[in-house]
């Protein structure tokens, strides 16, 4: 039922195609790239696009096309793992908080509110300023920042579900708390979780590019899209094309997840149609 609806949603399908292309680009980066993304070539600095260098070269003579292709790896890696971290933490925190209730619930949710009191990117910047910029710290920072959104969704579902009769019945036959949470409660909140996760993937790609642009993401010379733009910024006057392509790559990647996110919301949550 769900899949049938989703497959008939043209917006979602366009999104799926865009995401698939992005994943293929990351998986087959060595095949698709025409040059090594890290090789410095002093003889070919800041060149315009040509037959040899499709997107031109940067100030170190590195091939921008190959760097953009490899950049999809970093962007997908960060977005996927940060959303996984956020989902895992969010589900664990939200389920515990909602199921057991009481003062612990109160305290946990106040902390979640406090995290959400920061503009998301700002808190990530703060965490990275302290931990230092590298890939796993970016995953951790974005994971922490997005956790409360997942925790709130799960807690909300748990609160409404735990009073239901089937949970009561499961308790009565002697099932443990963990069993009830995993078997009866969590399966009932997957729909909003999937919608949130897709939206978060789009945000995470944007956030990663912003963080790298500020020098807080993957450390240079890693070819992340934000890094390429940050390099391009200093040589924009000489080589404008250097700025165009990484930005387009980010836009497409984010667009793919946003399209799928929209389609999922339409299919899973008819109220919002």
């Amino acid at each position: 039922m769900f899949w049938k609806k989703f497959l008939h949603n043209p917006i979602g399908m366009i999104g799926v195609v865009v995401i698939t292309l992005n994943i293929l680009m990351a998986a087959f980066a060595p095949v698709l790239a025409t040059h090594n993304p890290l090789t410095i070539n002093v003889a070919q600095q800041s060149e315009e696009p040509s037959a040899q260098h499709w997107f031109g070269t940067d100030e170190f003579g590195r091939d921008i096309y190959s760097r953009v292709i490899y950049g999809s790896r970093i962007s997908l890696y960060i977005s996927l793992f940060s959303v996984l971290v956020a989902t895992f933490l969010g589900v664990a925190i939200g389920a515990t908080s909602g199921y057991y209730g009481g003062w612990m619930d109160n305290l946990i949710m106040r902390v979640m509110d406090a995290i959400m009191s920061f503009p998301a990117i700002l808190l990530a910047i703060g965490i990275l300023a302290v931990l230092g910029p590298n890939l796993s710290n970016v995953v951790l920072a974005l994971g922490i920042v997005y956790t409360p959104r997942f925790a709130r969704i799960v807690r909300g579902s748990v609160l409404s579900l735990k009073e239901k009769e089937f949970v009561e019945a499961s308790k009565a036959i002697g099932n443990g708390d963990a069993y009830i949470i995993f078997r009866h409660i969590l399966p009932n909140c997957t729909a909003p979780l999937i919608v949130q996760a897709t939206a978060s993937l789009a945000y995470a790609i944007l956030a990663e590019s912003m963080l790298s642009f500020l020098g807080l993401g993957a450390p240079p010379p890693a070819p992340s899209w934000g890094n390429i733009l940050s390099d391009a910024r200093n040589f924009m006057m000489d080589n404008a094309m250097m700025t165009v392509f990484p930005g387009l790559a980010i836009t497409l990647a984010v667009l793919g997840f946003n399209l799928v996110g929209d389609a999922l919301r339409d299919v899973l949550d008819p109220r919002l149609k």
Partner: protein
Amino acid sequence: MLKFVLKRIIYLIPTLVLVAALVFLLIHMIPGDPAAVILGPDATAEDVASVRQALGLDRPLYEQFVVWLGNLAHGDFGVSIHSKRPVIDSIGERFPVTLCLTTLALIFALVVALPSGVLAAVYHNTNKDYLFMIGTILGVSVPGFWLGLMALLVFSVNLGWFPSTGFVAMWEEFWEGLRYMILPAITLGLFMAAVVARMVRSSMLEVLRLEYVTHARAKGLSEWKVITKHALKNAFAPTLTTIGIQYGMLLGGAVVTETVFSLPGLGKYLVVSIYMRDYPVVQGCILFIALVYVFINTIVDLLYGYFDPRVQYS
């Protein structure tokens, strides 16, 4: 009403303390000895000891927190390691730039979002509506800072319509200052414009179905009046909450926008301070921006009742 406002403000206190605690804990997340990290590898043992003492790092954690919180309550955000100036003074100098930028971005977002969202709802499921949906989904997908770079390239460097370097404050020379702000504000506000426009569209769609709108039409009111006076006022309440939440996106995005356009605001100050490992400034800036965000969302909550009187002030 007064009781509601007071209650809302009292409710704010635990949130503020927790926000402060998180920012306080940030600096203690530095791997190893914060004092040694701040000073870098060339520091002598005495230097490290003196910084440790200056930051109060030699005392127990809870004591440090209480002292820090007490100082905050007096408006003392610490002292910059680099400039030796009180952090709050530097924030005070730079925040007006950020406030100008985010306010202009907000104005831009609303000017674009309200009419387009309403029109999309009125023309629901027509080509105009589809065009609107395509526009908004692009709006939330394009990275604003990249758009900023492109705008800088096209409108400042190539066409020369806007200055590409330097800065003039709007409060000193309004029109000249505005020229420096237009591109940053538009590229920063675009994301919010798209999010708010979609919210306006969906809340308008919900409201336009209701019977009181049909009733207003049946009374013979003009379509313009039905939409602006009857429908929009009710559709605006959920939109307002979105605006409050999205203001955080503006404050966070301002950090990157200010870096792209070299605006001397709080965001750029934060980034520069991170590079210099000036942690008291990093702490101060992040805390200050979070406080502004909390404050704005409290105001939004209070305004909510005006647009949706069903919210009881009790």
